[in-house]
């Protein structure tokens, strides 16, 4: 402070640069990322999910015969490399029929996750289309579409999925399709709500006044802000879809046991609950981890992307 020069007459400091408010200006995405990182749980969730995805993808590729039966290894203890020097990564030992439990778990996780993500893609696609059209058009179009949503919501979801899969066969694709076409309602509602409020936004009115086509308005002006609820719905949707598939397989209506999924593992584990209760443990843990991680991730993203923040306590 002592080294400032002052104008002789007015005594006003000549160099005014120290008065510039130096708080940085950050973009919306930078702020969002900062807020997200503050959510320890959300970050943990993201990391957990990433680790699971990588493990599920890599392990079955790296290990030969990840899910195969091999009676000679019945109940063999855990090992990383087998007697012949092959990398087996049998961290959880072997089952009664000689299946490498760890690699089987990873393969099952991979299947479950794949089904989950694919189903979410369908959910998001249908949801966004219906929600955007309903929210943008308003009026009778909105009314009709919302009735459709109401009807879809009124159907007993799990039941329909089971019926669908039972009638049309239990392949991965029918399962993905079934989960997808019954699960889009929440996403549609979220998108519609966002679009309805955006419709009245000044900048949208301006775009309309300038003669922009509805398609351009929707895609370029309204969709980016609406991304926030879509992203959140997607991350929560992954958790829901994975659980749905697992439930399906658990009840015996899912994919066959050769293509392991978390649900089929639990189905078998339930049968052996008396004799080998520990079988339930690890698929359950993985399932819970996926759901918790996706939930935390979704919560964290929702808070990060919402510009209206309450002051957090120290």
């Amino acid at each position, binding site marked *: 402070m002592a080294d400032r020069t002052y104008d002789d007459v007015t005594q006003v400091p000549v160099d005014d640069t120290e008065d510039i408010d130096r708080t940085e200006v950050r973009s919306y995405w930078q702020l969002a990322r900062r807020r997200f990182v503050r959510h320890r749980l959300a970050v943990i969730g993201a990391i957990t999910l990433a680790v699971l995805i990588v493990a599920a993808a890599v392990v079955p590729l790296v290990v030969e015969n990840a899910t195969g039966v091999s009676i000679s290894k019945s109940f063999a203890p855990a090992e990383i490399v087998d007697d012949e020097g092959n990398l087996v990564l049998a961290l959880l030992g072997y089952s009664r029929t000689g299946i490498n439990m760890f690699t089987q778990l990873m393969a099952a996780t991979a299947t479950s996750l794949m089904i989950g993500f694919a189903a979410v893609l369908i959910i998001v696609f249908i949801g966004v289309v219906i929600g955007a059209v309903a929210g943008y058009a308003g009026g009778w179009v909105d009314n009709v579409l919302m*009735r*459709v949503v*109401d*009807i879809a*919501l*009124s*159907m*007993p979801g*799990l*039941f*329909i999925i*089971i*019926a*669908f899969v*039972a*009638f*049309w066969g239990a392949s991965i694709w029918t399962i993905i399709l079934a989960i997808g076409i019954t699960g889009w309602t929440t996403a549609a509602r979220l998108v519609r709500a966002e679009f309805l409020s955006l419709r009245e936004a000044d900048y949208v009115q301006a775009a309309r006044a300038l003669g922009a086509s509805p398609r351009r308005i929707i895609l370029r002006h309204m969709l980016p802000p609406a991304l926030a609820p879509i992203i959140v719905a997607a991350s929560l949707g992954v*958790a829901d879809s994975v*659980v749905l598939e*697992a*439930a399906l397989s*658990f*009840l*015996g*209506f899912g994919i066959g046991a050769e293509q392991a999924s978390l649900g089929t593992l*639990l189905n078998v*584990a*339930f049968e052996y*609950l*008396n004799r080998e*209760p520990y079988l*339930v443990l690890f698929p*359950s843990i993985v*399932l*819970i981890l996926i*759901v*918790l991680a996706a*939930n935390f991730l979704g919560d964290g993203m929702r808070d990060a992307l919402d510009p209206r923040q309450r002051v957090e*306590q120290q």
Partner: protein
Amino acid sequence: MLTYIIRRIILAIPILLGVAIISFLLVYLAPGDPLAQFRVPNVRPEVLDRLAEIYGFNKPLPEQFIGWITNYVQVWNPDAWGLSITYRRPVLELIAERTPATLLLMGSSLALTIIIAIPLGMLAAVRQYSWADKIVTTFATIGYAMPSFVLGTFLLYIGAIWFRIFPFGGMTSSLRTESDPLDIAWHLALPVASLAIQSIAGWSRYIRASMLEVLHQDYIRTAKAKGLSANRVNFRHALRNALIPVVTLFGLSLPALIAGAVITETIFSWPGLGSFGVNAIGQRDYPVIMAFVLLGGIAVVIGNLVADIMYGVVDPRIKY
């Protein structure tokens, strides 16, 4: 008030119609032959034709639909909902038989949920950031995230296998023919616990969030400025407002009273509607399946209706 209700009912009718159409189409378009189980060797074609006639499988689509709807509406007629292929008994009867078990299970769970979740949610909101809040939120998050079959299996294992306190499943012990309430209660414990834990987790999160939002409202500040005690502010002013959306949650839980919890019933071998329906799918018992889907849809529509009406009663701002 009456106009409000009537208007809501009228709005519900197209939805019911939509549900009916979709239910019908779902079953009608299912591949496979509904008469497959009758096609034993040496069966005479006339028998098959006659069966097709009885079940109406040989009429054109719209006619089948109309016939189906007109039949279904006549609920006083025990045959209205057709005959189960598997059991060869009227579907209505079978459903009626299974309903009490489901109602018992779901009703107990709902009651427990309301009794426990409201105080929990309130406690967590009022003491935000405290230990109590953290415990409740953690419990709620985990309970909510845990898939029902994991929780159910876990409870079954702990309760029935490890500690051997509870029975392994079913509603009654096999040697008893009359229903002994204590025996049923003993069997009810685990499945209800499984269901209740999940819904308490979900509800308390919801109630906590609603309560938190209310506690930040201006009128709560006004109430405090009037010198009211904390209890009075929390219970009379805050909770009363916070419970408004919860009322709709209650209404939306009503359909589950009928549809039951498929997974939980399966795990605990509880003889309710849920497991009955799933078995019907497995056995391709189409009349039962159709009845189920339609019933589920109706239950949801009625549940929404009840939720709307209750909301109108509880919130004086709703104009009717």
